[in-house]
């Protein structure tokens, strides 16, 4: 293994994982203009749904994954309907929305812990050492290839949705000007509900794939969310393509950073990158 090649591969893998979380986060932020902290727990909901159906109940893999994605999406949609929409109607500020999302995150995380305990769990009976493939002089595992393909597919899918469908253009219109979108006849509450479904389902899928790689815990959401938020801000918050850009940049900076510095500095490197962007290019690499 050539270390440089492996670091590039590792950067892409890490970047793909962060992008998975950032995609849904940015989609929701674009439409609602607030940082939805609860986004992290939807990743955990996806992972635990698969754990329940596939590992505990013995259901087949694909239906379990579909159930995980669906449940995460529904949870997200319900969170909008029951919590965020009423606050939007009362013209709640972004701060109030953020606090509400933090409360929701904490509550749902606690529910998961009560149902499944705080223990680390794997999604398969044995903690599968993945089949690996050689790429140039580096190695990559099967699950990572799946993650990368998923991210590419989701990005293309979101691009097509936002630019080629009426729904997608409505999302872009709401993102630009929610009030005018309503004036021209778009039921923005309904559209935002669907956005929450899609964004949270993507988070759920992320939680499932990451769960197959490194296992699940009720607290997995916050760590993933923080990296997803950094990727979003670095790439351009509210910009779907910014998710990819920011995710990859973060993945590379972290992995190349720990090449030269100790692994304990990983979080410091990530947040250092965030601060640099906030100070010097707050709109991110690609802007809004």
């Amino acid at each position, binding site marked *: 293994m050539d270390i440089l090649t*492996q670091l590039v591969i590792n950067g892409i893998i*890490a970047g793909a994982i962060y992008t998975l979380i950032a995609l849904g986060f940015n989609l929701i932020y674009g439409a609602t203009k607030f940082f939805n902290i609860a986004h992290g727990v939807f990743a955990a909901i996806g992972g635990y749904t698969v754990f329940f159906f596939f590992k505990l109940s013995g259901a087949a893999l694909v239906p379990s994954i579909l159930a995980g994605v669906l449940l995460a999406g529904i949870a997200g949609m319900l969170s909008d309907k029951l919590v965020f929409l009423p606050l939007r109607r009362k013209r709640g500020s972004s701060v109030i929305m953020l606090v509400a999302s933090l409360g929701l995150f904490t509550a749902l995380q606690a529910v998961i812990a009560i149902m499944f305990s705080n223990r680390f769990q794997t999604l398969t009976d044995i903690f599968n050492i993945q089949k690996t493939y050689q790429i140039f002089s580096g190695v990559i595992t099967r699950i990572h290839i799946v993650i990368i393909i998923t991210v590419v597919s989701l990005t293309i899918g979101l691009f097509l949705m936002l630019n080629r469908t009426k729904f997608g253009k409505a999302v872009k219109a709401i993102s630009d000007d929610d009030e005018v979108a309503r004036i021209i006849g778009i039921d923005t509450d309904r559209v935002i509900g669907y956005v929450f479904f899609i964004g949270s389902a993507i988070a759920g899928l992320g939680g499932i794939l990451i769960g197959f790689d*490194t296992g699940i815990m009720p607290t997995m959401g916050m760590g993933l969310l923080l990296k997803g938020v950094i990727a979003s801000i670095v790439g351009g918050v509210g910009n779907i393509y910014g998710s990819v850009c920011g995710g990859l940049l973060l993945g590379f900076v972290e992995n190349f950073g720990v090449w030269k510095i100790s*692994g304990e500095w*990983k979080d410091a490197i990530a947040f250092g990158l965030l601060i640099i962007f906030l100070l010097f290019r707050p709109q991110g690499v690609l802007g809004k």
Partner: protein
Amino acid sequence: MKKTAKIIIGVVAAVMVVSAAYVHSMSKKPVVKDTFKIGMIAPLTGDAGFVGVGMKNALLMAREQWGDGRYNYEFVFEDDQLDPKLSASAAQKLLNVDKVDAIVTVGHAPRITVPLARQHDIIHFAIAVQKDIPDGVNNFTHWAPSVKLNGLLIKEMQKRGIKKVGVFRTTSLEAWVAYYNDFLDGIKNTDIRVVTDQTFKKGEKDFRSLIARAKPTNPDIYLIFVETPELEIVAKQIREAGINTPFTTLEGFEVTEQPELFEGYWYVSPVEPSEEFSKAYEARFGKRPPVCSPNAYDIFNLLATAVERAGSSPSKKPATEQIVRELKKIKSFPGALGDLLVSDNGMVMSGVQLKMIKNGKPVALEH
């Protein structure tokens, strides 16, 4: 004269009656035993609840077996759920409200209780590995000492001809830092060297770049100093990087839920509790004794032994200083964790052993 004599006789008779009554009452009064209060701070609920419950059960069983001693022994159990904030409030309650004479701790509570024990001049027994906790004055520890664990680890490495060690360790937990520092001290005068030292914070999930850094150093063995789940994730990712080098650790393989990752690998851990203790615990509570319970059992027996030896009157328990003096005289004590010795600096030295994961289960090896 007659009158005076009558008065004198009457007074003498009264005094004699009163004296007789007093002597009679004194001879019938039972001896009042003083009570030695022992507090415990451990997780009794939550995921780590099994540890605290095990300790509690072991203390109760030890007291039952102790039977009727010179003093009464009372317990006060506090649940800290492994939360340092709760540990602190529990310690304050035990000291200021319950006025305990000794405290047994585990988890975060030892670090919090150390200065309080000194301040209140009580005895504190921590089930902990950190070398700076015991002072031999108020604070004691009962866990297989890091020096002993590492000693056996290094010996085994030398026996197997291991010279290059690759280390993956967390710096987030004191115990692992203590283990590593003692490992480094231990290899100073050997030909074993650390060829790569990869550190990370607890909670890390992606070790791939650290592994890429470590791989070119080509160690003979990887020493992994972290517990679940990072232990399993590191091992898995090392294998996925195409590295087949064996792993070892202190204790960690003992409680892994993915033993297949460590099949065939040796490691060092504290000795198993004695069969006698395990059988008695199982008969009493219906399950095998969990980790820390034999330590708690031994702690009660050491304390009670020292208290009984130090005290001169059942109605007045001995002072802390006297108890500590007796504790430190104990150089051979049959405990649940083998033959125990209390060192002058407050460490209870118990045994360590070599183990291996065989067919998914830890088994003892001959060293």
